[in-house]
């Protein structure tokens, strides 16, 4: 189980997609490790089959429908996007050669690349772009993510075969970022006319690979090189068709089984290994760990800012200062993960490093803050009390794999005089209590290739309630100043302006202690040394477009 699930929270995700690895207790989560050597030594070589074992599969392959990180990872080789986003968050031409945005920010005009064909022979043109966007927002598609990424989308029209004009209902500075994700990837218009359920098994794009047999549930997906592919984004590392002839992806849900399959040479590479396995592999000759930090929100504890003891900002401040989070992360993850020092992880475009000092360990200050908040008494067990009531925080677990971390945090909180009650409940109860706000702490990470993710997790519209259903503002944070900043960011003129506004949001959130960030999750691919040049997409999922095999 990866600690990070791009663009979706960990908690509710565990409710739904939680595999039985959970039941096996072996489920060490969280990939990790820094990249080893094996970057580009030797001359790249064409051909060969990469055998890859992944930890989970999407319930539906079509990224227009599915919200999962695994759908994004497995469809990126098949689907190209209009624009390409690099790891710094900048946008580059891909299937669109250039674009203009109207002064009011509501009209986007894209010039399209000519001579591009889908692997089923369909031509890529303005008509195809319109068909794709309309497919995403079509109610029959029942999109669980893509449609909300382009919630501002109004309509698209064909100007000429190589030009498409997209109108938005309101300015949305995150629109290009959404277009760059596989969720808005371009699928063959012919396939979009079929049933959504057919697309869950097989999709056709213009990408560097095709998957003729599609996704075989509980088994995997096999890719074959698209020899006609010459339109890789210029900003990406490799132009032209990919070097690998084939990629065979097998779903191996059990972590130890994935590790064993790699070390015994039954596969060439695996994703989603536990920090323990990563540590072992780093010491084992013959293997390389490729990794990158997931952009987005670090793995964090979310305090319920709306009710209970954590509605007092001083108690939240005390918790942040009084627990040595950095040391705990080091203890639990053997230095494989970096401790987090802000609401965004450092690899996120728009990250503001100026907030880091606020996340320093200061137990004396924590004690003073708790006194100030009125938690001055002590009971027989050594916990702080106020009016005879113990300072107790109920921590709702997102899934069972957080146990080691939770235990250490519990011990540190006890030294501070704070009791945490660890609650590992079933999915339905989790959802019920999330909607009712019946908790003091929830843990989750949330990865996303841009600072807009702050709106998803701290926007007042996203507080989970009975009426609204499950949503992502688990801190139940509602600050009018931040709401105003979010509105301004959506209408921002350019990238710099947008990042400046989101930096302000990060500072406000840090002042308000609306989140207790713990560590930045890593996206990792562990491979034998013969696998060279493993890359990562902007959303942190691995990319094998440039990958080649020495043997």
């Amino acid at each position, binding site marked *: 189980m990866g600690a990070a699930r791009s663009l979706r929270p960990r908690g509710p995700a565990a409710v739904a997609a939680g595999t039985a690895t959970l039941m096996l207790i072996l489920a060490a989560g969280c990939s990790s490790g820094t990249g080893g050597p094996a970057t580009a030594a030797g001359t790249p070589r064409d051909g060969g089959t990469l055998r890859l074992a992944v930890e989970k599969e999407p319930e539906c392959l079509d990224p227009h429908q599915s919200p999962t990180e695994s759908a994004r990872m497995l469809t990126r080789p098949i689907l190209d996007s209009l624009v390409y986003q690099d790891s710094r968050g900048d946008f580059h031409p891909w299937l669109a050669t250039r674009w203009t945005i109207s002064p009011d920010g509501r009209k986007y005009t894209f010039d399209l690349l000519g001579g591009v064909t889908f692997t089923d022979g369909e031509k890529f043109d303005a008509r195809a772009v319109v068909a794709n966007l309309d497919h995403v927002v079509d109610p029959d598609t029942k999109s669980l993510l893509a449609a909300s990424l382009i919630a501002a989308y109004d309509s698209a029209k064909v100007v000429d075969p190589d030009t498409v004009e997209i109108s938005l209902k309101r300015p949305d500075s995150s629109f290009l970022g959404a277009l760059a994700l596989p969720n808005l990837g371009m699928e063959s218009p012919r396939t979009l006319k079929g049933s959504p*359920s057919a697309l869950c098994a097989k999709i056709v794009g213009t990408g560097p690979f095709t998957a003729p047999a599609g996704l075989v549930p509980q088994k995997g997906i096999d890719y074959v090189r698209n020899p006609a592919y010459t339109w890789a984004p210029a900003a990406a590392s490799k132009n032209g068709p990919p070097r690998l002839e084939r990629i065979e992806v097998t779903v191996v849900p059990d972590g130890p*089984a994935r590790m*064993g*399959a790699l070390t015994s040479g039954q596969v060439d590479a695996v994703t989603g290994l536990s920090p323990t396995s990563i540590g072992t592999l780093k010491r084992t000759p013959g293997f390389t760990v490729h990794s990158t930090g997931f952009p987005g929100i670090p793995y964090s504890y979310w305090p319920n800012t709306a009710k209970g003891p954590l509605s007092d900002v001083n108690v939240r401040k005390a918790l942040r200062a009084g627990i040595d989070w950095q040391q705990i992360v080091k203890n639990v993850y053997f230095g494989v993960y970096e401790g987090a020092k802000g609401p965004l992880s450092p690899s996120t475009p728009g990250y503001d490093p100026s907030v880091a000092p606020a996340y320093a360990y200061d137990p004396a200050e924590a004690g003073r803050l708790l006194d100030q908040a009125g938690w001055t008494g002590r009971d027989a067990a050594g916990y702080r009390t106020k009016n005879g009531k113990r300072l107790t925080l109920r921590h709702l677990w997102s899934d069972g794999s957080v146990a080691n971390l939770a235990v250490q945090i519990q011990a540190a909180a006890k030294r501070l005089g704070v009791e945490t009650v660890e609650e590992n409940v079933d999915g339905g109860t989790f*959802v019920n209590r999330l909607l009712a706000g019946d908790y003091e702490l929830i843990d989750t990470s949330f990865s996303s290739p841009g600072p807009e993710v702050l709106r998803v997790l701290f926007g007042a519209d996203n507080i989970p309630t009975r009426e609204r259903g499950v949503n992502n503002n688990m801190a139940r944070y509602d600050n009018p100043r931040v709401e105003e900043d979010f509105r301004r960011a959506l209408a921002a003129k350019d990238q710099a302006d947008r990042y400046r506004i989101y930096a302000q949001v990060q500072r406000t959130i840090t002042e308000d202690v609306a989140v207790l960030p713990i560590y930045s999750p890593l996206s990792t691919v562990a491979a034998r040394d013969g696998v060279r040049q493993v890359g990562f997409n902007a959303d942190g999922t691995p990319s094998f477009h440039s990958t080649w095999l020495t043997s």
Partner: protein
Amino acid sequence: MADVLKAPPAPAVEPGRAAGRRRGAARLVLVRLAASAAVLWGAVTVTFCLLRLMPGGTADVLLARSRVSPEIRAQIIAEYRLDDPLWVQYAAYLGRVVRGEFGDSYVLRRPVWDEIAARLPHTLLLILTTLLVTLVASVLLALVSANRRRWVRSSFAAAESLVVALPPFWLGLLLLTLFSFTLHWFPAIGSSSPMGLVLPTIALAAAPTAVVTGVLRQGILQALEEPFVVTARSRGIGEPALRVRHVLRHAMLPAATLLGWIAGSLIGGAVIIEIVFSRQGIGRLMLFAVQNKDMPVVIAVVLLTAVVFVAINIAVDVLIWLIDPRTRETGRWA
């Protein structure tokens, strides 16, 4: 379920004995079929109720991983009729079950039967090999261990207890580590080949083998005390022939019933093995469906399991009826 067999006493009419036997068999199957329908109705109803009793609304759990607008949420609720009164949902559901329409999975977004049909052969194959291994291994082990020396018996019994106590996932990982990762004899993934079937079968068959061996040995030891053994011995029969031809037949009766029960439980019980060995199968489908409150899938799998369970038990009862003449004479089945 076996009690049903006690109800129709075989007509003890002397002249038409063969005809009565046939009638008895037909009646046996008919009564069992009627009882089976009741069992299936019970299974689907209990499933329906349990899924409703689980905490959390179906729509909330269904959409937990997603960001959707309130309109899409409302549309999904309407489409899956999650806002209808409970009895309307139940009636509609029962109607669909009777017509064999299980619809589309909420989560997988594909027809339920397609999903099941794609996985069922893998599960059935595994169950078949598991039953075969269980049967052969337990008969051999029971014959060897039904020894009059006490220490032999108790060391076998101790080993059986140990095997039953092993968590299947741990045993699976142990087998994988030893025979796949270290010795490279069998593949850990790519389960479609015969070689890929060996380790999962051993892991899944271990506990049933231990249980059935114990029951068989007990039966053999008891049968060895019966007077007919003395008779057979007095005719000068050899010890192996005595055990295989006469004693084993007695001991098989309770073991056959037990095997029927085990076969039924293996369908869902294979889930751990399917995960550890990355096998396709019904168990994994079921686990995923329950976690997601994917009612159409859960209900179809429960019904399928119940059908298989019932079919196997009818087969076992008929088998016993054939093996043991006494059940035909008296309408009892030992």
